[in-house]
């Protein structure tokens, strides 16, 4: 028997640190949601009236919307059993010594730097490498790039904020975008001015005032004409939270000739419903790329989308899902072609292990006027064990005759021949399987910043433990 590090949080016992300890909050609302709660959130943040109005409107929409009856099983979500606003107390920090050993071990085995470990464990609310970040921040400021928390963005740049907030994903888009709009807190606000290219990836956890990941994050990115930015969020270390619902909204505006890459790698503990709405508007000759890695959670429903609004716009999605036992990754994309000569490319790779289930759910829609457009979708699923499951639900609608659409799907099991070959060189079964899996996801991993790629491969090795037998 291997000394297995539990990567996943046991739902019942729960890790008793961070968000779970009532003494650690400056403000903690009682469970449940009503108009009063929405008002109090807005008031505490000192928001302008128009934002409060948006929130209240969204709350009504939320009440009126039915739960989605497709995708994963959402019947166990109890909206009355959730705290809708928590503000951690900055002074009352936990010390590293209080963090349970098995989590420390997991961090160690992932090879995460000391400072980052403490941050991830909730010991630090600010990342220790502010000195490193300092020079980056200066460079960004000189170029006129805005990069800050969403709450701060609203305070400091209300005009930009008001123009774009909710313009890509209206509250009424779906029940969870309505919920997020009503109670959002945290997230990132990014504005890249015309022609500015940000060479270094903007990393969410480098942000000076980064707090622990919130439940209802709201991120807004505006890339002005001809600009470029690569935004990176998340990390491969497991995110422990006693809150069972994470419902974020990410809106991106990619203007003419601009390019945005948005990279997410998240590994949720297996009690979490991860229900996220992500969408980008891509204008003339712009490029929007979503790189989306989903590991863990009880159920993830996430379909990063691109609305190709301007001629020649391009949308890309590279998606990676890893469903371990009793997890369901329901992921995919929406590519909506609304202008001529637009193109989209989707590569989705999923891995199902144990009783895990991964589903690809995608829409490609080419409108009548989107002439000479093309779309290509490739879904590859890898099943590790006999009882692992995968499904594909592609919806394709093409309303003109000059466009081309391709869809390829493959399902494979771990190849016995490859396994035998690798093991014939002295690797054990777990190592060989981990190598095959890392090879399977390599086309996506190679696009990640180096440190993420390394962490991700280590994480896969850890996930593979116990997959044999």
């Amino acid at each position: 028997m291997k000394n297995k590090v539990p990567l996943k949080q046991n739902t019942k016992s729960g890790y008793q640190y961070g968000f779970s300890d009532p003494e650690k909050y400056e403000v903690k609302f009682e469970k449940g949601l009503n108009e009063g709660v929405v008002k109090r959130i807005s008031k505490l943040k000192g928001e302008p009236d128009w934002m409060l109005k948006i929130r209240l409107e969204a709350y009504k929409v939320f009440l009126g919307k039915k739960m989605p009856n497709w995708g994963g099983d959402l019947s166990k979500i109890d909206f009355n059993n959730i705290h809708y606003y928590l503000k951690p107390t900055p002074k009352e920090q936990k010390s590293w010594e209080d963090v349970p050993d098995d989590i420390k071990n997991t961090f160690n085995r992932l090879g995460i730097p000391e400072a980052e470990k403490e941050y991830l464990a909730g010991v630090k609310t600010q990342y220790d490498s502010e000195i490193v970040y300092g020079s980056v921040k200066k460079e960004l400021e000189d170029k006129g790039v805005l990069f800050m928390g969403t709450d701060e963005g609203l305070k400091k740049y209300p005009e930009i904020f008001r123009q774009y907030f909710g313009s890509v994903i209206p509250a009424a888009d779906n029940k969870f975008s309505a919920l997020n709009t009503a109670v959002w807190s945290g997230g990132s606000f990014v504005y890249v001015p015309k022609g500015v290219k940000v060479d270094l990836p903007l990393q969410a956890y480098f942000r000076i005032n980064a707090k622990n990941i919130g439940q209802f994050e709201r991120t807004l990115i505006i890339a002005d004409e001809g600009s470029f930015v690569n935004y990176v969020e998340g990390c491969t270390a497991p995110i422990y939270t006693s809150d069972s619902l994470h419902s974020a909204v990410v809106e991106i505006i990619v203007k003419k000739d601009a390019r945005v890459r948005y990279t997410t790698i998240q590994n949720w503990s297996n009690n979490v419903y991860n229900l996220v709405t992500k969408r980008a508007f891509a204008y003339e000759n712009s490029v929007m790329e979503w790189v989306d890695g989903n590991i863990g959670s009880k159920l993830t429903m996430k379909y990063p989308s691109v609305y190709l609004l301007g001629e020649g716009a391009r949308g890309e999605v590279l998606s990676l899902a890893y469903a371990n036992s009793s997890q369901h990754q329901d992921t995919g994309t929406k590519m909506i072609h609304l202008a001529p000569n637009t193109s989209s490319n989707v590569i989705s790779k999923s891995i199902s292990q144990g009783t895990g289930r991964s589903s690809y759910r995608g829409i490609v829609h080419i409108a009548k006027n989107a002439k000479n457009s093309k779309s290509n979708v490739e879904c590859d699923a890898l099943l590790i064990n006999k009882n692992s499951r995968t499904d594909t639900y592609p919806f394709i609608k093409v309303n003109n005759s000059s466009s081309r659409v391709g869809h390829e799907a493959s399902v494979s099991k771990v190849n016995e021949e490859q396994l035998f070959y690798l093991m014939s060189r002295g690797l054990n079964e777990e190592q060989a399987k981990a190598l095959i899996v890392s090879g399977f996801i390599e086309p996506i991993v190679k696009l990640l910043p180096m440190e993420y790629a390394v962490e991700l491969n280590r994480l896969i090795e850890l996930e593979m433990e116990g997959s044999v037998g």
Partner: protein
Amino acid sequence: MLSIKNLKVNREGLEILKGISLNIKKGETHVLMGPNGSGKSTLANSLMANPDYEVTSGSIVLNQSDITKLDVSERAKKGLFLAFQYPVEVPGVPLIQFLKLAYTEKTGTSITPGAFLKLINEVAKDLDIKQSLLDRYLNEGFSGGEKKKIEILQMAVLNPEFVILDETDSGLDVTALKTIFKYVNQIKISKNMGVLVVTHYSRILEFLKPDFVHIMKEGKLVKSGGIELAEEIEKDGYKTLVDVN
């Protein structure tokens, strides 16, 4: 010594090997020949514990320890190596990363990336392998000849005691054939390795001087001898030899 004792092997319920006995000492080169379907590759795969093959009786003993029940990975660690007839492609797995992991597992020691690259580059040079091939994913898109060379490169890096070359010569042009088998011969001598070469053709005997030649037919070794046996086959084919029995 690698000692095969009365080995019987089934594949999909069908008996392929019907009692094979063979002793290979360190430093010896044995050549196993025989017509198609005689069971040569079955023997090679059974020695390496391919799960598709079921050993029904007999044993395999490596340096006095019975390895019949060990799985492929454990056999590899004990010093057995199989150069595959058809090396499988493993997309997305960098050749060097894989080989370094295997090296670490096999030797139980860690090696700096620099030292490991040096080791690989030396072997690659001897085998006339292009540097660019080493930077690619394991066997992915390699030509037949390149795959065979990479098998031998892995062999040299992992430093086994006994090796089985399963039709390594098939599909190679003369230049590659010469490079590979001269190199195998050289390693065999310098490392005192035991070698079992499974082949169809006697043409490799130009470059590899075997100590023994065995002829297999219908799952049995029907004749063993020296290099002269291979020469007879070259002249008369398998028929006359096999009919002797």
